[in-house]
C-alpha cells in the first residue's frame, strides 16, 4: 500500500516537473513582448533594454528556466508584469474562491448526476429515462456562458432568489457551482445510469432482493456504492476539466478566483501569472487524481489489492 502510494507520488512529482517545463516553453512561443507592455508608449529603447535585463529576458532560455525552476522550488512564482506584485500571493488570494467553486461544482455534479442517473436506471427504456438522457446530453453541449447568463437572468434577476454576483455566502455559490457542474452532472448521470444498470444485473443485487429489501433500498444501499466507483475516478479528472470552465463562470458571476485572473493574464499575456496558474492547476489536477485513488478503496475494498 505505502509503496504503491510512494510510487504514485513520485510519478505525480515527475508530471509536475514536466508541466513546468512545458509551460515554460509554451509561454515563450506566445508572440508577445512583455517589455513593450511594461514600458508603455513613451519609453525609450534604452529604458526597454533596462527592463529586459531586469526581467532576465536577455539570458538564454535554459538559464531562464533554471532560474524559474529554482525560484519555483522556493515557492516564488515571480512578479507579475502588469501588476508589479508577487504572483504567489496573488494566486494564493484567489485560490480559495476557485477551490470553493470547484467543490461546489463537484457537489452540484453529484447532486444532479447521481439522482438523474438513478432515476434513468430505474426507468430504463421508458420515457422518463429517455427524457433524462436527452437532457443530460443537452447539458453537456450547452455553452457555459449562455447557461450561466440564463440562470443568472432567471433565478437572480427576474426571480431574485440568488444574488446577482459576488462571493461570500452559500447563496452566492449556488448558481456558479451549478453552471460549472451542470455539464459534468449530465456526464455523470449517463455514467451513473449505465453503471447502475450493470450493477443491477449483478448477482448480489438479486441476493439483496431475496433478503426482502425494497427496490429503493436495493438501489441506494447496494447499488449506489458499487455504481459510484467509475464516477469517483472521474471526479479526480474534474479539476482539470473545470480549469477551462472557471474562466468563463467566474467572469459571469464575478467570482474572485483564479479563472478571472487567468483570463486577464491571457489578455495581457502576463506570463508569470499564466505560468503560475498553470503550475498550481497542474498541482491540483494531480492532487485530485491522487485523492480519487485514495478514496476509491474506501468505497470498494477490493481496490486495496493493487
Amino acid at each position, binding site marked *: 500500500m505505502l509503496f504503491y502510494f510512494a510510487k504514485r507520488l513520485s510519478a505525480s512529482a515527475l508530471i509536475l516537473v514536466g508541466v513546468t517545463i512545458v509551460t515554460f516553453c509554451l509561454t515563450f512561443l506566445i508572440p508577445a513582448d512583455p517589455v513593450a507592455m511594461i514600458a508603455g508608449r513613451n519609453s525609450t529603447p534604452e529604458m526597454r533594454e533596462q527592463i529586459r535585463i531586469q526581467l532576465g529576458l536577455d539570458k538564454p532560455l535554459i538559464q531562464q528556466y533554471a532560474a524559474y525552476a529554482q525560484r519555483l522550488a522556493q515557492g516564488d512564482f515571480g512578479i507579475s508584469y502588469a501588476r508589479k506584485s508577487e504572483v504567489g500571493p496573488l494566486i494564493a488570494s484567489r485560490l480559495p474562491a476557485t477551490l470553493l467553486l470547484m467543490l461546489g461544482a463537484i457537489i452540484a455534479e453529484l447532486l444532479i448526476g447521481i439522482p438523474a442517473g438513478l432515476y434513468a436506471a430505474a426507468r430504463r427504456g421508458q420515457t422518463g429515462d429517455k427524457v433524462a438522457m436527452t437532457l443530460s446530453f443537452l447539458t453537456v453541449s450547452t455553452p457555459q456562458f449562455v447557461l450561466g447568463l440564463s440562470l443568472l437572468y432567471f433565478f437572480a434577476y427576474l426571480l431574485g432568489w440568488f444574488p446577482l454576483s459576488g462571493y461570500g455566502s452559500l447563496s452566492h455559490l449556488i448558481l456558479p457551482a451549478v453552471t460549472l457542474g451542470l455539464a459534468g452532472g449530465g456526464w455523470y448521470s449517463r455514467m451513473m445510469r449505465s453503471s447502475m444498470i450493470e450493477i443491477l444485473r*449483478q*448477482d*448480489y443485487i*438479486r*441476493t*439483496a*432482493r*431475496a*433478503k*426482502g*429489501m*425494497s427496490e429503493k433500498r436495493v438501489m441506494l*444501499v*447496494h447499488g449506489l*456504492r*458499487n455504481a459510484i466507483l467509475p464516477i469517483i475516478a472521474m471526479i479526480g479528472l474534474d479539476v482539470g476539466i473545470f480549469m477551462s470552465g472557471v474562466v468563463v463562470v467566474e467572469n459571469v458571476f464575478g467570482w474572485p478566483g483564479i479563472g478571472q485572473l487567468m483570463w486577464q493574464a491571457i489578455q495581457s499575456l502576463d506570463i508569470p501569472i499564466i505560468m503560475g496558474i498553470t503550475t498550481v492547476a497542474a498541482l491540483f489536477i494531480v492532487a485530485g487524481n491522487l485523492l480519487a485513488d485514495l478514496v476509491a478503496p474506501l*468505497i*470498494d*475494498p*477490493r481496490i486495496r*489489492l493493487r
Partner: protein
Amino acid sequence: MTETKPALLSVRGLSIGFATEEGPIRVVEDVSFTVAAGETMGLVGESGCGKSVTAQTIMRLLPSPPSRIEAGSIDFDGQDLAQADEAAMRRIRGDKIAMIFQEPMTSLNPTMTIGEQIGEVLLLHRGLRARDARPKVFEMLTQVGIGRPEKRYAQYPHELSGGLRQRVMIAMALICGPKLLIADEPTTALDVTIQAQILELMQALQRESRIATLLITHDLGVVEEMCDHVVVMYAGRIAEKAPAKELFANPRHPYTAGLLAAAPRNAKRGQTLITIPGTVPPPGKRGQGCSFAERCVRALPRCRQDVPPLTGDGHLAACWNPVP
C-alpha cells in the same frame, strides 16, 4: 401421490412467460409440485429448462415486466404468492423463505462486510440495529462452521474463499429461521472437496432445524445424496416426479434415463458415452407435442402431436412411451 406430511409449499399449474422483442415466450409451463415441511425436494434438469425461473418466481424475484405469471398458483403457508403484492412479498423474502444462489463469488456485495450483509436481514425483518444484530450474526456464523466470527464479521467477501462465502450465504439465509430454503445450485461452483463440506453442512443443518428445502441442481449425484423427492424438468415442463430412490433405481422418462446413462462415471473408460443427441430447444422454439420427442429414442408419432400428461402413482412421468 401419498402425502404423509402437510404441504408447506404447493405449486400448481404454474406457467411463466417472458415478453421479449420477438414477442412473448413461455418459459415454464404447467409446473406443479409440493414441498412438505422438513422435506428436501430436488429440482433437476438441464441448463435453461426453467429451474431458476421457477425458483425465482416462487420468491417473486423476477422483474415484471418482462416476466409474467401466466397461470397457476403458489400456495405457501396459506397464502398464494402468485397473487401477493410486493409489500407482502418483501415480508416473506428472507424471513419465511430464504434463498441461496449458485455463485458465491458474485452473490455477495463486494463493498460491504459480510457481517453487515448478514445483519441486514435482521434489520429488515426484526428491526434490529447493527449493534444488536451482531451477537446473533456471530452465533449464526459459528453455526455454519465459520470460526472466529468476530474477525470474519468485518471482512469483505473478496477476503474469503468460495466455500466460506457459500457458508456466509447459508448463514444469511438461515438467520431469520425461514420455513423454506430455496437453494439454486448451491454447490455447482465449488470444488469437490468444498462441495462435500457444504453438502454435509446442509445435511447437518437440516437434521437440526428440519427446514423444508427446494434444492435445485443439475448434478444427479447431489440429488441422490440430499433429496427425498425429485422433480426432473425438461424444456419448461416437468418430465418426471418421484421419490429420489425410486427415480434413480427406476427412471421412467427416457430423458431421465438418458441423463443417468450419459454420466461418464456410469460408462466404461475410453468407450463412447451414451448420449442424448441434440440440445434442449430454447423457449419459443418448442413445437407441439413433447419437447423431448426430437431427441428421444423411444419417440412415437403421437409424441410429436400431443403433450403427454404427468401420470403415475407416486412416481409420475410425462411420457407416452415411458421406460418400462
